[in-house]
């Protein structure tokens, strides 16, 4: 007997006892639905987190930070010039694994559009800054080498600044406006988009109906600094706001407020850091006053929490699938003890034990497979409900892989739970089975 015939018999058996079959499927349906939903949820969290990681600069982002010198080295402190533009130039020349370098100067300044004013941090940067900090552009252009070379008074501003100074304008219309920084006029040449986390975006979309005071003010916002950017050319910053603070400072020797880097190839992350360290040891004359701050640990923590979520969710869903499989086994055992006589007849007309085995197994697998398909349908519904009741979470993402995996798992549960009943059925003695009442 081939499997096709067994399938036909099995499907007829399932159709003949619709309610019973449905009951035995129920465990599988729920198991598959919860497994798919769990996979979708964790995939959503994973994607959201990864997108977030990318937006904050990605793993390639390295921050050169100042470090307290140990007391033993204290006398040598003056030997080191600290972080300077010279550092950046040396790194550019001697650390080929670093693809972009962004030195920064910062100053607290009064910014004004004429009608609105506030105090904010203004930063002088090089064009590489836009790559290192992964800026996107809403309108206008980024600062260019020409801006830096000529010391032009051009500025790129973030979304928060636009809202603060030009609340009546749509952000793109701000390009071309004049921004006063400590009363010096700058032309706004570019506007950055609003950076926000996925969940904030969704919450905002939900709140847009009732434009209330609900601002995400207090909560920690990793994009606050990016949204409050006021970026001007490094040279302009130096000459307009920093020159003359210390008479001997030059553009090269003034101490930087930030120095960030981007590693070109993540596979060679460690060697890249070594190159930077070697370059800085030289420029800092061996004084150990800097440190390389990376996202590795932070991202590792995120990754491991994603893994933990996946594992625990998957485990719970797996348990429910196993319970579903036990349900199928239970029903199959009941079903064969009800069909002993039928099995006896089949044996009497020449069915081998193997034929009966295949028949019961195929029936059990069919129940699991149909249950799995119903579970997929249920999962679609379940995820819509999840989206409604938990809008702040990351959007659940249904993946084909997750669906296929769950259905295969259900089929496996059906297969395993069918083996014992099938074995029992196939070992029936034909005479005893025929006499069975």
């Amino acid at each position: 007997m081939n499997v096709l015939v067994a399938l036909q018999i099995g499907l007829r058996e399932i159709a003949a006892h619709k309610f019973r079959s449905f009951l035995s499927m129920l465990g599988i349906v729920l198991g598959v639905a919860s497994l798919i939903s769990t996979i979708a949820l964790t995939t959503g969290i994973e994607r959201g987190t990864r997108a977030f990681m990318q937006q904050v600069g990605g793993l390639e982002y390295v921050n050169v930070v100042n470090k307290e010198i140990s007391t033993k080295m204290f006398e040598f402190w003056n030997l080191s010039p600290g972080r300077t533009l010279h550092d950046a130039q040396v790194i550019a020349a001697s650390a080929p694994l670093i693809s972009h370098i962004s030195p920064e100067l910062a100053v607290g300044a009064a910014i004004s559009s004429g009608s609105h004013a506030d105090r904010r941090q203004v930063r002088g940067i090089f064009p590489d800054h836009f790559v290192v900090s992964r800026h996107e552009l809403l309108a206008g252009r980024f600062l260019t080498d020409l801006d830096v070379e000529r010391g032009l008074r051009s500025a790129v501003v973030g979304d928060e600044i636009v809202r603060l100074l030009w609340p009546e304008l749509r952000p793109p219309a701000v390009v071309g406006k004049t921004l006063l920084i400590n009363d010096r006029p700058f032309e706004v040449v570019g506007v950055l988009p609003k950076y926000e986390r996925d969940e904030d975006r969704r919450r905002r979309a939900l709140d847009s109906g009732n434009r209330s005071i609900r601002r995400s003010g207090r909560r920690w916002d990793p994009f606050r600094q990016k949204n409050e950017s006021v970026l001007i050319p490094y040279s302009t910053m130096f000459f307009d706001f920093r020159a003359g603070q210390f008479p001997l400072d030059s553009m090269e020797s003034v101490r930087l407020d930030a120095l960030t880097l981007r590693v070109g190839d993540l596979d060679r992350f460690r060697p890249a850091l070594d190159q930077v360290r070697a370059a800085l040891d030289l420029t800092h004359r061996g004084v150990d006053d800097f440190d390389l701050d990376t996202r590795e640990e932070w991202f590792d923590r995120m990754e491991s929490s994603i893994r933990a979520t996946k594992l625990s969710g998957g485990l719970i869903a797996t348990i429910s699938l196993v319970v579903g499989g036990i349900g199928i086994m239970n029903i199959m055992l009941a079903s064969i003890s009800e069909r002993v006589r039928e099995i006896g007849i089949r044996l009497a007309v020449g069915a081998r034990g193997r034929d009966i085995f295949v028949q019961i197994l195929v029936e059990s697998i069919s129940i699991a497979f149909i249950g799995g398909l119903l579970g997929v349908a249920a999962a679609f519904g379940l995820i819509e409900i999840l989206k409604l009741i938990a809008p702040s979470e990351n959007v659940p993402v249904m993946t084909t892989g997750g669906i296929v995996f769950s259905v295969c798992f259900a089929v496996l549960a059906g297969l395993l739970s069918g083996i014992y009943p099938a074995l029992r059925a196939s070992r029936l003695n034909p005479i005893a089975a025929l006499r069975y009442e």
Partner: protein
Amino acid sequence: MPLVQLEGVSKIYRVGDQEIRALDTVDLVIETGEFVSIIGPSGSGKSTLMHLLGCLDAPTSGRMQICGNDLSSASQNRLADVRNREIGFVFQAFNLLAKLDVVGNIELPLVYSGMRAAERRRRAEKVARDVGLGDRMANRPVQLSGGQCQRVAIGRALVNDPRIIFADEPTGNLDSATGEMILQMFRDLNASGKTVVLVTHDPDIAAVSRRVIEIRDGKIRREYCP
């Protein structure tokens, strides 16, 4: 070579530590084309003999040869194959599958001999017409009378074109007129060349055959020709 040959065949059942000798060193030969009845009261061992002859069970000891197959110590699978190819069964209680229609029941042995679906159906329909159920092919057993059910069972026994047909009290659940019709069918089958073995407790029914074997206490007591 005879169609069926038993030499010193015994069948012993163990219930607890008690041995029950259901068949005790039976010798029996059935030639092709015979119409044999096996009679005896209940508990005489006639059912056990029938199960052995029908390859539903293997003997405990002795030599058994059926349709050229030595089945003295055959595996269950081997027995299943012989049942499928060489033997047709007709039971007292019909033993039809309630879920299947007439054609579905008749084609059942063919399912296990691995025949293609279209061919199976064609042959089953032909047999259904042969046993006089040409207008009942799509009916289920519950929609049929007892006589019609037994015709379906006979059709099922015939569909694989077996060399030997076993009937276990085939008229037991039928009224006498219908029973007579069924017995006539067996006579006709025998006339067309099939070997028929009829098991019954009723000597009147056994009288339709040409050779009667009487069994008592697991032994063949006597043989006669009515």
